[in-house]
């Protein structure tokens, strides 16, 4: 449940989680199911407003993660649990597989090492493909491809519905979410933490810092110092319209370098095709602006790989920020004697690793002797059903009619989300939950209707007021 009023006389929670990105949401679910009472504190007006806002929406196997790293372990565990739970949680998976492609002799020479690493990482179904095998599988690829290998287990998922489902399950089973609630200070008295926020104070036995792009700042506020510094890495993406999705059935991955996985071309589970991300280090933790030259460059890169993209419409462009640090691996550690756990530096693999990270952290904070009493029959909430490759609400009777024509979003879907347990407080939040305005017209057709449907619902309304005011 979410509590709207000021945080007064809250009582004591077992765990307070700072930050409702995908990792915070997964942790809230894990600990709630394990039997802990959980409070989630989110600084922004809505959940998933930081690093989890924009990514490539791929469920990675971890085939190219640094072998033996915590990251690789969490991706492997997270991947496994995702596939075990997705059906129960009603989360769609598009089993597209991926091709890692070399476009030069230099890249071709790297492939054996990468295949070996994948096998070492336990992703044993990775195998080399010849140019002709690749072109047979992906006939729209440019003839300039020289070789590659397949990673059959790389899949496409809904990055927002997944995180929402984790949090919704936590909330349905007792967790409490506070939005617009920023932790400004905190003290540990040897028994419990008292966190001061802009909306009041919260007490908890344990706290977990999942503040993502602000992880180091939160740690400084609570512990006084932080061994890592977040250097936001911006990734810009260009999204092509649905007709482009027919041009690539696999996820097309580049040969990765040290700093980035490189530019990916892949479908989205929503039926589009995306090209990105760029990797640009910057100081600002909020600047997720796009740069027109870079968007044009991404489009060109996409056309280089798939020439027919030239004739496809671009429908959207966005940028996400990854909370990179000076360290290669995740910064997950517990400060003994302070009941404080930091989950930092979850850069670009957070979506794939979230459930694995949650398991790992649950093990850190509640080792066997302290473990909670797990909930026996947890409530399973209804997820957002937005996959273009699975049944949608518009196909069902009594859907109220279509409001967003590009993405076929029904009136019933919008009303359910607005009246649901995790209603959006911004247009962005409504877009993530329903896909309104996410399509090719970007609101040309449905803005008028949306203004009416969302009146009084957002803390920053779409309309400034009636024209007679």
């Amino acid at each position, binding site marked *: 449940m979410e509590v709207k009023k000021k945080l007064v006389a809250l009582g004591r929670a077992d765990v307070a989680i700072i930050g409702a990105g995908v990792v915070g949401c997964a942790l809230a679910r894990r600990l709630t199911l394990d039997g802990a009472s959980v409070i989630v504190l989110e600084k922004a007006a809505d959940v998933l407003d930081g690093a989890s806002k924009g990514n490539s929406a791929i469920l990675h196997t971890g085939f190219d993660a640094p072998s033996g790293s915590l990251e690789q372990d969490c991706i492997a565990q997270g991947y496994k649990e995702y596939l075990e739970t997705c059906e129960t949680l009603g989360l769609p998976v598009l089993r597209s597989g991926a091709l890692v492609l070399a476009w030069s002799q230099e890249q071709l020479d790297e492939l054996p090492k990468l295949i070996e690493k994948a096998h070492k990482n336990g992703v044993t179904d990775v195998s080399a493909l010849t140019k002709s095998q690749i072109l047979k599988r992906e006939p729209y690829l440019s003839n300039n491809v020289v070789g590659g290998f397949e990673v059959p287990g790389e899949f496409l998922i809904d990055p927002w519905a997944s995180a929402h489902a984790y949090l919704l399950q936590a909330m349905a089973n007792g967790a409490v979410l506070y939005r617009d609630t920023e932790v400004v200070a905190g003290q540990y008295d040897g028994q419990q933490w008292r966190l001061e926020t802009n909306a009041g104070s919260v007490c908890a036995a344990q706290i977990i810092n999942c503040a993502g792009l602000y992880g180091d700042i939160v740690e400084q506020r609570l512990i006084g110092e932080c061994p890592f510094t977040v250097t936001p890495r911006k990734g810009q993406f*260009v*999204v092509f*319209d*649905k*007709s482009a999705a027919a041009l690539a059935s696999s996820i097309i991955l580049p040969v990765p370098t040290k700093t980035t996985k490189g530019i990916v071309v892949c479908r989205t589970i929503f039926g589009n095709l995306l090209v990105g991300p760029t990797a640009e280090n910057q100081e600002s933790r*909020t*600047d*997720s*602006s*796009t*740069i*027109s*030259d*870079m*968007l*044009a460059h991404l*489009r060109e890169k996409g056309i280089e790989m798939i020439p027919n993209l030239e*004739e496809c*419409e*671009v*429908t*959207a*462009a*966005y940028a996400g920020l990854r909370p990179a640090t000076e360290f290669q691996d995740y910064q997950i550690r517990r400060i003994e004697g302070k009941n404080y756990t930091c989950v930092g530096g979850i850069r670009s693999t957070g979506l794939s690793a979230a459930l694995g990270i949650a398991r790992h952290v649950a093990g850190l904070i509640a080792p066997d002797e302290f473990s909670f009493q797990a909930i026996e029959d947890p409530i399973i909430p209804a997820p957002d059903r937005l996959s273009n490759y699975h049944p949608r609400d*518009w*196909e*069902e*009777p*009594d*859907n*109220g*009619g*279509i409001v967003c*024509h*590009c993405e*076929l979003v029904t*009136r019933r879907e919008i009303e359910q989300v607005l009246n649901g347990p995790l209603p959006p407080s911004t*247009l*962005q939040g409504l877009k993530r939950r329903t896909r309104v305005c996410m399509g*090719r*017209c*970007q*609101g*040309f*057709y449905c*803005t*008028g*209707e949306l*203004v*009416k449907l969302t009146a009084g619902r957002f803390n*920053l309304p*779409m*309309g*400034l*007021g*009636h*024209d*007679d005011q």
Partner: protein
Amino acid sequence: MTTNNGGLPRKSDVAVVGGGTAGLALATKLKRLGVGSVIVLERENDAGGIPRHCGHYPFGIREYGRLLKGPDYARRNVEAAVDAGVDIKTEVTVTALHPDGRLSLTTPAGKAELQAERVVLCTGAREASRPQRFIGGDRPLGVLSTGALQSMTYLQGMRPFRRPVIIGSELVSFSAIDTCRHLGIRPVAMIEENDRILARRLVQPYLMMRGVALFTKVKNLRILGRRQVEAIEFIDAAGKQQSIEADGAIISGRFRPEAALLHLSHLEVDPGSGGPMIDQFGQCSDPSYYSAGNLLRPAETSGWCWQEGIETAKWIAEDLSRGQPAVVPSVRVQLVDRAIGFSVPQRLSISDRTGGMQKMQIGLNVPVKGYLEAISGGQSISNTWLNSRPVRRVQIRLAPIVQNCSKSPVELSIQRNK
């Protein structure tokens, strides 16, 4: 599939997809020509199309002999269609086009299907969105197309900002200024990436009178703002970095056909116009399908679309009277000069069928001064003097081309130094 097919008939002689100006005019004319059943499938709550939220003049002179505002014009088009016996179904979305005139639909009651002898695609056009124009920056509230602005203000009576910047300088951009002023919104600037205003209009005094600053030939446009738009940044014609305080941005113009259905279908699409490949009768690559109105090319006026609907209706009625749709031989129109962005029609049917469009519509990529020449089988078959620019209306006579195209492709080129 719902048992009662969502309240829709399962069969129709003609199904018109889209109840805007072209679709309604076409459907009305078909009924007046004696076609049996004509159904218009409109996805919005009300038929009428874009004019419904153009709360300004001038509409309807040619059609009704009087000056109307958009919503009144749209209402008249709907009334005329209903009076003629057209079956208008609203809140019906076509989700797929199948060969031979079969349509997948969805309604508030669920999925449905419709089989028509002929389907006419009249889905219109919309403005290019911000991402399509690669306008960078933040993604705050207050960035709208003219269409979104008008539907928000005219249909819902809400205003999204007070001091926006207008990006683009086509006719619709000026219509956006009028819409704003009507609501007490004061646009602060008009920004155009081209070296001059695109609309054919005496603009300097118009803008000055309204206190709207004009910037042409701008580069590196960026929209900035955390929650609501705060500023628009760009490099001006003199190469100077500019920042204009504004709380909104209207992304106007650069119309493109609303062709998503088409792109996902079996029909051939013309990348140049963004619409379907048609012949001089408006017939698509699948002869069960026709098209008219702004789906054919980036936007024309309502009056034009209305006329196009009427004309196309005649050809469809005649085609229906012949029975089953048939594929006839045709020749392609090839654009050999990059200055030419598109031609409508894109192919010419060679048969005993007479009539069809009298003019070929041409879209230019760059300003052109010269002769537009059509060559077929090595022979020059048409020569037309042009002095025009992108976005402007350009037409050449089609009859000499159709009559002389000698069954080999028609090449369009521009002779600049004659």
